[in-house]
């Protein structure tokens, strides 16, 4: 099915400069759709949840990008598909030119060893019955590092890198004996263990205390620089993005609505949704207490039957009658390298 809108969309993405930037592309997401089937009484088909619906982007080696959006906008489904935990319904993900759809068995294991995953809730991500030593040893055993001395050497090295020293004090401990920040460091150490090329960090600091957040973000940043890692940082908090990523993708209801370098996005947010997100983010200022924030009415739409046309139109204050609810906006480029899917910029 290739309706005019869909073609426009795909072309828009190509124009968006997210593709064809030569051979230093690490990960290429191509028209990715992840739909989950709804069943009635366990077998009758009752539609799909369109969690990710036509996402395109390229990630280069040692590039950091952020994906920003509310809960339920599909960012976690996108991430899990990149981690090969979900299979794409349509579209493809290429890692170093190879399609994830084609990977099986050993190859899949190899792919997974090259992608590190930093979970949102560090306590939930660490097995409570394993010591830190075992937590850090297990991925190595699974990936065939048979030499005990080598395993030990490696885990000590990553523990030093995440600044959990003296290492010997921490290795025999269990996750519940560590503070939230330390647990998150162990999670990061585990993600770094197999020398990945890509780290996917799913809200790595949202469960942590405000005073520790910056510390963990700086740690991730320094690891990224030291190892030339590519990082996908997923968050709903725009204020932390600035210290971490060069490029931001704003996601709404399964689609990327804006794609821009972070500074341009903060200076000049184009999509009304991005505008709303920025306006809702507060900086410490006593004057906040006396003014109300502009928040778009309503809630994110159901992804079972997403709105026609632009998915933001039912909440949008700047809707163009007769256009926004009818036709899906392609990507426009109001300034260089800044792409937005909104009819206001036609």
């Amino acid at each position: 099915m290739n309706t005019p809108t869909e073609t426009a969309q795909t072309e828009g993405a190509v124009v968006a400069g997210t593709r064809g930037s030569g051979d230093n592309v690490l990960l290429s997401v191509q028209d990715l759709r992840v739909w989950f089937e709804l069943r009635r009484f366990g077998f009758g088909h009752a539609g799909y949840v369109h969690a990710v619906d036509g996402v395109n982007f390229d990630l280069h080696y040692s590039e950091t990008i952020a994906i920003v959006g509310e809960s339920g906008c599909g960012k976690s489904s996108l991430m899990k598909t990149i981690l090969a935990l979900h299979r794409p319904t349509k579209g493809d993900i290429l890692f170093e030119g190879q399609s994830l759809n084609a990977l099986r068995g050993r190859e899949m294991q190899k792919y997974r060893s090259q992608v590190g995953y930093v979970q949102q809730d560090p306590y939930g991500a660490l097995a409570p019955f394993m010591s830190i030593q075992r937590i850090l040893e297990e991925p190595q055993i699974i990936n065939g590092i048979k030499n005990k001395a080598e395993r030990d050497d490696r885990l000590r090295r990553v523990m030093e890198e995440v600044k959990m020293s003296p290492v010997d004090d921490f290795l025999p401990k269990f996750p519940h004996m560590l503070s939230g920040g330390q647990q998150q460091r162990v999670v990061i150490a585990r993600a770094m263990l197999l020398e990945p090329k890509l780290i996917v960090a799913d809200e790595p600091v949202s469960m942590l205390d405000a005073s520790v957040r910056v510390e963990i973000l700086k740690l991730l940043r320094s690891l990224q620089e030291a190892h030339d890692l590519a990082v996908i940082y997923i968050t709903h908090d725009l204020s932390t993005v600035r210290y971490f990523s060069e490029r931001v993708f704003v996601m709404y209801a399964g689609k990327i609505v804006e794609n821009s370098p972070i500074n341009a996005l903060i200076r000049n947010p184009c999509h009304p949704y991005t505008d709303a997100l920025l306006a809702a983010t507060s900086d410490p200022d006593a004057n906040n207490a006396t003014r109300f924030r502009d928040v778009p009415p309503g809630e994110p739409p159901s992804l079972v039957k997403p709105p026609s046309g632009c998915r933001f139109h039912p909440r949008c204050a700047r809707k163009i009658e007769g256009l926004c609810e009818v036709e899906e906006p392609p990507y426009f480029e109001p300034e260089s390298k800044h792409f937005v899917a909104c009819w206001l910029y036609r």
Partner: protein
Amino acid sequence: MSEMPLLHVEDLKLYFRTGKGTVRAVDGVNFDLESNHAVVIVGESGCGKTSMAKAILRLLPRNVDTYSGHIYLNGVDTMAYNEEEYRRQIRWRKMSMVPQAAMNALNPVLKVGDQVAEPSIIHSAMRKEEALEQASKMFQHVGVPQDFLHRYAFELSGGMRQRVAIAMALVTWPDLIVLDEPTSALDVLTQANIFNVLKELKGELGLSFILITHDIATSSELADSVAVMYAGQIVETGDAHRFFAEPLHPYSRKLMDSVPRLRGTQEPDFIVGQPPSLINPPTGCRFAARCPQCFSRCAEEPPTVAEDGRTVKCWLHVK
């Protein structure tokens, strides 16, 4: 002090017995709250913020070791009430609470309307129909559609559940609501929405709030005054305008520096080390071990210095 503020907390202590020793979760806390004001209590996790909220509402677990001090509400010392009197006259009648992760605090097998009506039935001895009517009025105040009265918690989004929890705290028309991390699990837009609701309630109903949070940036959305808590003690209090412009205590300054800002270019910093254990808190200033401006006098317990309406517990400000 000629006239008592709405809430006056004096030397409040709450210690817990544990296997490892006595945990001094709240260790001599003093603060005031004026009527129709909001005070924000900020601090890291484990500094005793939630314990303090529970101490104010007397929602205590079984392993309490010491519970002492004075809590004056409208000039009356509530600590003098026994449990039954307290329950009948204070809890939910005068003060109520929105618990942490309130979105998960709703009963999954009761309709949310019935849950919101329940406090009126129990505390105000209303009939069920009256109570439901009251609940629907509250839903209007917090911006939940009327037909949600007959829904279950799982049918509501996180933001709506949070509003329902606020409605539940509001339904008996208390003077003071304690909000424990009301938005930490929510998205930015929902967060902004909830704060809009709270600001409206403050303006329309003349409510007072105690807002407990670790997030300074969002705390500024509601704050008239700020109290900074560290290791069971309040180290700084002051009005919001001056606090956000220039915090006095080194801990408050560090905390302020650690806030990632959307606007502005300053690099955020973090506080090295961890808060001390509350089982054996260090003598002297409890922040000394992490303080960049620590000097010899910090080995002694610092006094609380009052400077034109602000207080700070730090030797640096002793003249």
